[in-house]
């Protein structure tokens, strides 16, 4: 075997080159040096191979061995993934903790989900059944929320020759034998850089309900869709991602902390087991998978973490689940590409990023989709990527290229964040390309006029931004009352509707029906106020009325389970204005 190993000839940060690499394959996983650091072959030139190493390369020497593992960088897919936290190459952080304590040392070797752990398996096939790829042959209750469907891996088929009884087995137990010679276990492996197959891609149909008003009402994200959340530092990207991870109505959340802060991952680890899912009343950790490759962990593993996350998401999608992937942040991933590219001395394109940045981004976002799985279920992977533009400037390459491949764009705004308007999603620069596709769904499931009201409100906000230009020059007082009313309604919308308090027990998650009722209230107030202004009611009366403040506060005062509270508020509005109009008409 000695002759088949490569030999190191060059080391520079995470990039290692070795000779005698003729028999190695592109994208193959290898181990490097005495400590057996994990790496991946990223280029082969004659007998010289280039390897990116997923661990700190301190201590590697010239002539150190490079040994092949005979397989591409893969993840192990089976029970034990949900509720777990992994590093960028799917090594459970708990196992790393057991092996090397509080600090992550290099040379821990490969590790993955616990294959010795026993799970109770219900087998769903009998001898003689014909099985093909994607078919479900058994189930495991992985968490109280998630039933793990054991599937025949892609490219395998055959007739069942032997099958075990229901019972407790570990991951290595052969559960089913096929006449093709294939043996089915509880887990399968899949190379991270290749999308898992599906039967067909279906058009977008349903929204991903997030409970965040500015998203659900104004810029909806679709199940199987893609969204980007760009914003400079301090604008609340991570906060928004956390809110979506907590409250969106996906079955499974894959949260990829890619090159972000260690304390943020710890926060998720501490918070999620305590947070209760509003639909199932069980802790959110039961449906959450965390991938944590913090900013100070090796940069090559940061590059891989995105693929590890999306592959896990696709695996659960194949079972028929709606999976949402939160990638925080894709800019750090792009920077990892840049860093490695720089070490490889590749010709840089814009701002030092490699020329293949757009194609990599496209490959990643295209792994989202609403699909029919191999076993004929409808399921989806939704990708929500945070983008951290340098200097908060959206014209930089990562933001611009991301914009080309996502349909919903939720631009965070520094000015809003400075005045503590959260979520700081700018209603003028954001957009969602899913409105037309989701219109029918909203009409059938929320209200006939929901999308219409949305349009009206966006109009108010647009008009306000134009009026504010004038106000900046001449002050508000000189505007006619009709226009000042628009400013006040915009204020109602901004403070009473768009701002949402993540720390308030009701306001942190608002069901669609309540969102609709709130819109309806504001719309009704607006219509009546317009009439009142027409008959000469001064705007100062309306904007200092107690009712105005009740509407601003309705998000707090009216609980999610609102009963007749909105009807009462609506009646009060009607009564207030009919009195007011009568009073002024009488004059």
């Amino acid at each position: 075997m000695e002759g088949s190993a490569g030999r190191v000839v060059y080391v520079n940060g995470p990039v290692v080159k070795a000779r005698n690499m003729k028999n190695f394959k592109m994208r193959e996983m290898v181990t490097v040096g005495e400590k057996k650091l994990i790496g991946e072959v990223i280029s082969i030139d004659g007998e010289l191979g280039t390897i990116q190493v997923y661990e700190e390369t301190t201590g590697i020497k010239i002539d150190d061995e490079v040994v092949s593992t005979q397989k591409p960088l893969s993840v192990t897919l089976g029970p034990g993934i949900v509720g777990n936290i992994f590093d960028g190459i799917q090594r459970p952080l708990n196992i790393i903790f057991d092996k090397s304590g509080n600090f992550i040392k290099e040379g821990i070797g490969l590790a993955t989900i616990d294959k010795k752990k026993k799970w109770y398996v219900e087998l769903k096939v009998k001898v003689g059944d014909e099985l093909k790829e994607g078919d479900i042959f058994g189930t495991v209750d992985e968490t109280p929320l998630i039933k793990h469907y054991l599937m025949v891996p892609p490219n395998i088929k055959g007739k069942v020759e032997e099958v075990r009884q229901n019972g407790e087995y570990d991951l290595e137990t052969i559960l089913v034998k096929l006449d093709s010679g294939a043996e089915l276990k509880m887990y399968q492996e899949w190379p991270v850089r290749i999308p898992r197959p599906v039967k067909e891609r279906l058009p977008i149909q349903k929204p991903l309900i997030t409970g965040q008003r500015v998203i659900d009402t104004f810029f909806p994200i679709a199940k199987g869709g893609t969204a980007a959340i760009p914003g400079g530092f301090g604008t609340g990207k991570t906060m928004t991602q956390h809110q979506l991870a907590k409250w969106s109505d996906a079955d499974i959340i894959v949260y990829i902390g890619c090159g972000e802060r260690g304390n943020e991952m710890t926060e998720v680890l501490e918070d999620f087991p305590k947070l209760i899912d509003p639909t199932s009343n069980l802790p959110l950790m039961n449906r959450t998978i965390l991938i944590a490759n913090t900013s100070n962990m090796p940069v090559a593993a940061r590059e891989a973490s995105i693929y590890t996350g999306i592959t896990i998401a696709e695996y659960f999608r194949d079972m028929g689940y709606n999976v949402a992937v939160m990638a925080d942040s894709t800019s750090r991933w792009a920077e990892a590409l840049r860093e490695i590219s720089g070490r490889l001395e590749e010709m840089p394109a814009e701002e030092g990023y490699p020329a293949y940045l757009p194609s990599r981004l496209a490959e990643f976002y295209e792994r989202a989709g609403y699909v029919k799985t191999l076993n004929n279920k409808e399921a989806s992977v939704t990708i929500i990527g945070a983008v951290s533009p340098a200097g908060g400037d959206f014209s930089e390459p990562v933001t611009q290229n991301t914009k080309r491949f996502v349909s919903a764009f939720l631009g965070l705004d520094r000015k809003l964040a400075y005045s503590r308007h959260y979520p700081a999603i700018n209603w003028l620069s954001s957009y969602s390309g899913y409105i037309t596709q989701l219109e029918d769904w909203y009409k059938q499931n929320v209200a006939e006029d929901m999308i219409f009201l949305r349009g009206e409100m966006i109009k108010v906000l647009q008009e306000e931004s134009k009026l504010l230009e004038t106000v900046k020059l001449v002050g508000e007082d000189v505007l006619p009352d009709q226009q000042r009313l628009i400013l006040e309604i915009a204020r109602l919308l901004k403070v009473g509707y768009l701002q949402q308090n993540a720390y308030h027990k009701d306001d942190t998650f608002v069901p669609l029906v309540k969102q609709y009722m709130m819109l309806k209230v504001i719309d009704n107030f607006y219509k009546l106020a317009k009439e009142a202004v027409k008959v000469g009611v001064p705007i100062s009366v309306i904007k200092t009325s107690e009712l105005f403040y009740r509407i601003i506060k309705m998000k707090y005062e009216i609980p999610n389970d609102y009963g007749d509270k909105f009807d009462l508020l609506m009646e009060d509005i009607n009564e207030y204005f009919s009195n007011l109009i009568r009073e002024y008409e009488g004059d």
Partner: protein
Amino acid sequence: MHKEYLSLKKIEGPLIVIEGVEGVSYNEMVEIKVQGETKHGKVVQLNNDLAIVQVFENTSGMSVNNISVKFTGKPLEIKLSREILGRMFNGIGQPIDGGGPVFSGIKFDVNGSPINPVARRYPRNYIQTGISAIDTLTTLIRGQKLPIFSGNGLPHNQIAAQIVKQAKVAEGEGEFAVVFAAMGIKHDDAHYFIKTFQEAGVLDKVVMFMNLADDPVVERIVTPRCALTAAEYLAFYENMHILVIMTDITSYCEALREISAAREEVPGRKGYPGYLYSDLASLYERAGMVEGSKGSITQIPILTMPNDDITHPIPDLTGYITEGQIVLSREIYQRNIYPPINILPSLSRLMKDGIGEGYTREDHPDVANQLFSSYSRVQEVKALSQVIGEDELSEIDKKYLEFGEAFEYRFLRQEFNENRDIDRSLEIAWEILSILPKNELDRINPKFLDAYYRG
């Protein structure tokens, strides 16, 4: 026995290239003897039998022949014990206070290792700094990394010194110590800090790592790593609460750029290397608390924004890694306000879990929120009044101007020796908020309005 190499292939700026090396490992330390003087370096690239070494000290006076190079086989390590408290070291961890070497069996690699996120404890205990603007609006939490974004000539050193002085007083539990890393700062700035530590009576609780403006540039790369390694030892092995002050990060980044250019690397933004983010993260992420230890590392890095530009790569990348920032404003300072903190771009990401009921006071989160929101409105009104004149403003806008004035001169401004506790700070906050009509305070729970509003 390590082999010695007696000639170099090339000398270029801070880099030397040695040919024909065997068994050399990446990142290991190198000892270089030139004319009886010992210099140090680190292997930064291996290519067949060539080793590129980055020399910490000056390479002037070196020649390709008259030299002896020895590879030590180890990364840079420093010896650590409790005795380092009160000591002063140079940028690569050698004592320079005449107190002799540190005797200890414990040696740590200065590069450190990343903390496993599952081993971290989430920071929740706030540190009272006695500065109203910080305690109320950008609360510092034990285990946090909260940089000061400053500019040349602004009083960032005074603020850091005031925090050291006053934070100490509030510590009730555990031992408190300061690790101070100077990277390319001026001699008088260094003296200022030493003097302040002395006056505050904490000098025997301070470990100093000094790389001053005229010290070798390359050494600067290692200085914060030595300091943070010392901090990790004191926090996680001696269970102390450590405040790390690193100044000036901008000088550190320039050193990084200088070396990157010498190595002919592909540059990223403004000539800084593409790995600037990862490199800064390897410093900042060493703040925090871990399981099984009572200690903590809180970092206050200070950086001077080139041309006061917050979008410059150094403050920009820093802001993406650290848990907030305290931004100083030249404009506020020129109006004779100390500390000149511009609260609007300032932020503490960890304060949400360390304030309010059970931590500071129940009304604290709402008050902070309201101050931010109202003060941002003040800016709009100011802009308007410049166009149409103050007299033309509406009544409510005039109130906002009055509030803005009070905020800056009564709340923000305080003396260098004035130590306000959190109750006092919140009390002033309510005094100035009460200038505004009650119904303008839309961020505050009505319950607290009833209890604290003084209209």
